């Protein structure tokens, strides 16, 4: 047993380095998509202290809207623009109908409201688009669907072009978000609201505008995530469960930290894949990805309750 835990996995890694690279690549692809979903959560939490349970269904809703519009004969890129329009209308509606009347209510009430939004979007999505699995419009969007093959050390490394595109687009979106939050007036306003809501409001930052903005950004993130995941295995309501994978990312990285979401996502994506392949499958019979990330996050929480990058909250009583 000790050999299986401490020796065999590393021997396997050195014996087949091309396979190790493949495992790391698959982990990176998953990780960056986890990070994207987590970013959606973090942005909304930072600006409003709301844990947005609806982030997963927003991914499904955005992807279904895109495919649905295309199936109605709308050109692919026009469908993208219209989908962004739908996500904007959704953000405005959520702010006006759900959040504004609940300003000042305890956090748990706002959290429950996002569960209500989830159920509403599930019903609305099923009424409009049906529950059938749909094919993501990968080719119409110009996303390459081939694969790039390398033969490192005489082995085999297959990189799907759509995965490379997903990593590239997700990476660019993360950089754009960081620039937006750090270099623009609106971005600074979002951060200010997260740091000290009272002070931010007192200097004239509009709560309503910021909420619409962050929910719209979460909608953009949902669309990119939906396209990336949908290109892998189709668009259906099953995509919603992928959002739950972001929960340990948030526990690990911290609910308020954008850096934490990115690094946490990448860490979990790669570590869960490495653990599954080299320890989970040979020793535990596989399927460790369902729990590994949560255990890792719990271990981190034991030592850093605020997560790796979260801010330590000190409250006077």
């Amino acid at each position, binding site marked *: 047993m000790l050999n299986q835990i401490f020796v065999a996995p590393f021997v396997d890694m050195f014996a*087949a380095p091309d*396979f190790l690279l493949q495992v790391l690549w698959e982990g990176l692809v998953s990780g960056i998509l986890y990070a994207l979903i987590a970013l959606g959560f973090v942005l909304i939490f930072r600006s409003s202290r709301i844990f947005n349970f609806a982030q997963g269904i927003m991914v499904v809703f955005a992807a279904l809207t895109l495919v649905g519009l295309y199936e109605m004969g709308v050109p692919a890129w026009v469908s993208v623009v219209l989908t962004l329009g739908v996500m904007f209308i959704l953000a405005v509606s959520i702010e006006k109908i759900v959040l504004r009347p609940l300003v000042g209510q305890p956090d748990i009430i706002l959290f429950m409201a996002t569960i209500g939004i989830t159920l509403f979007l599930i019903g609305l999505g099923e009424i409009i688009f049906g*529950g059938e*699995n749909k094919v993501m419009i990968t080719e119409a969007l110009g996303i390459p669907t081939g694969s790039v093959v390398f033969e490192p050390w005489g082995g085999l490394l*297959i990189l799907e072009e759509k995965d490379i595109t997903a990593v590239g687009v997700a990476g660019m979106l993360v950089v754009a978000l960081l620039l937006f939050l750090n270099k623009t007036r609106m971005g600074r306003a979002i951060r200010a609201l997260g740091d000290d809501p009272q002070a931010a409001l007192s200097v004239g930052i509009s709560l309503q505008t910021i909420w619409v903005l962050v929910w719209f950004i979460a909608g953009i993130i949902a669309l990119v995530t939906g396209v990336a995941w949908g290109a892998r295995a189709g668009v259906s*309501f099953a*995509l919603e469960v992928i959002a739950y994978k972001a929960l340990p990312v948030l526990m690990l990285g911290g609910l308020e930290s954008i850096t934490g979401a990115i690094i946490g996502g990448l860490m979990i994506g790669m570590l869960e894949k490495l653990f599954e392949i080299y320890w989970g499958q040979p020793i535990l019979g596989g399927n460790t990805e369902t729990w590994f990330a949560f255990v890792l996050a719990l271990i981190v929480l034991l030592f850093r309750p605020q997560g790796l990058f979260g801010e330590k909250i000190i409250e006077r009583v």
Partner: protein
Amino acid sequence: MRHFTRLAALAAFGAVLGTGTVAQELYAPNLAYRTGPFAATGIPLMNGQRDYMTMLNARDGGIGGVAINFEECETGYSTEKGVECYEKTKGQAIVTQPWSTGITLQVLPKSNVDQIPILAPGYGFSPMADGKVFQWAFNTPASYWDAASMMLEYIGEENLKGKKVAFLHLDHPFGKEPLPLMEKKAADIGFELLPIPVGLKEMQNQSAQWLQIRRERPDYVIMWGWGAMNAGAITEAVKTRFPMDKMIGVWWAGHDADLKIVGEDGKGYKSISFSYPVLDAPLMADIQKYVVDEGKTLSNEEEMQGVFYSRGLVISMILAEGIKVAQEHAGTAEISPSDLRWGLENLNITEARLAELGMTGMVPPFQTTCANHTGHSGGWMLEWDGEKFQKVSDLLQAEAEVIAPLEAQMAAEYAAANEPWPVSACN
């Protein structure tokens, strides 16, 4: 006071009227799932089932002159919601169609008390075939063990000996169901069985499972997939360049829409099936005339040409035939759940009967008895040609001599574990 007396009289009259209304239809609820992660595979099946009953109601005025109330109760494939649906509908129902192995396993222990037949065509607990033990449960026309046996038979013993077979399955009661038979066959034939579970949250991200397949280099992959797992597995198989002709799915992993995601790349993928779409069958013309043309279907032209819609029709045919046989035996059109149990135990779907139903070639002939609640119809191997599934084998039959003792053994174990469990002599 007089006001209340009038109200009470009105209520009593309504109750009598209500009873009359209920008696003029047979309530056959379907525990459907048109929502949730498994909706994509559930919808065409539910549509096929619904359209068959709608057609019977429109064309024949129901069965034996009594309309069928084919109400759906939405479960989202959730076991908890399924049990709620069962409890909600059992008062008037003549049958329960649980539509999930998880839900079937939950309602199975209640069946002896509630005495409502459980109809789980092609799913559920394989030992339900033993009608002596599972007097109220039916997995007609074929069980999961039948499916596993036919898949191995198709590959061939000579091709399996000394080889490695990966068993990619949903980590759920459904996915684990064929394991006892697969393990027995692996020991008997002498092949290495490599179970690879896929968690519900990993259905659309199976890269780890397919990395394992790449590392282990199995000779065959047998897939027990459902819902979003199928599309996830097939896209990963294409990506990993696993030879498609070495991959065979159970009948719930043979959905046209899942394969359309990979299209030409999925060519050669196979799926065992107890049903097959015959688009020029007389039944399809009746469905068109009485359901589609009347605007009563929830389906669409593309879906209606697929394997799953057609299977939905077959599944409702099994129930309808059970009702018909029960009505003839009981001498009344308004049958009870007990009558239906008798009907489902005495099905004899011959080629001649299939021709009368306009369903020749849509399902193999089969016969049930008091002791045999499955019928063991056998099935066909279907292959994806890049656009649709094609039949590529003659009728395959499961190995009764291997399956029957295993069914009897596990049924007896179930009865012993759930004592006191009534066992019938089936005389």
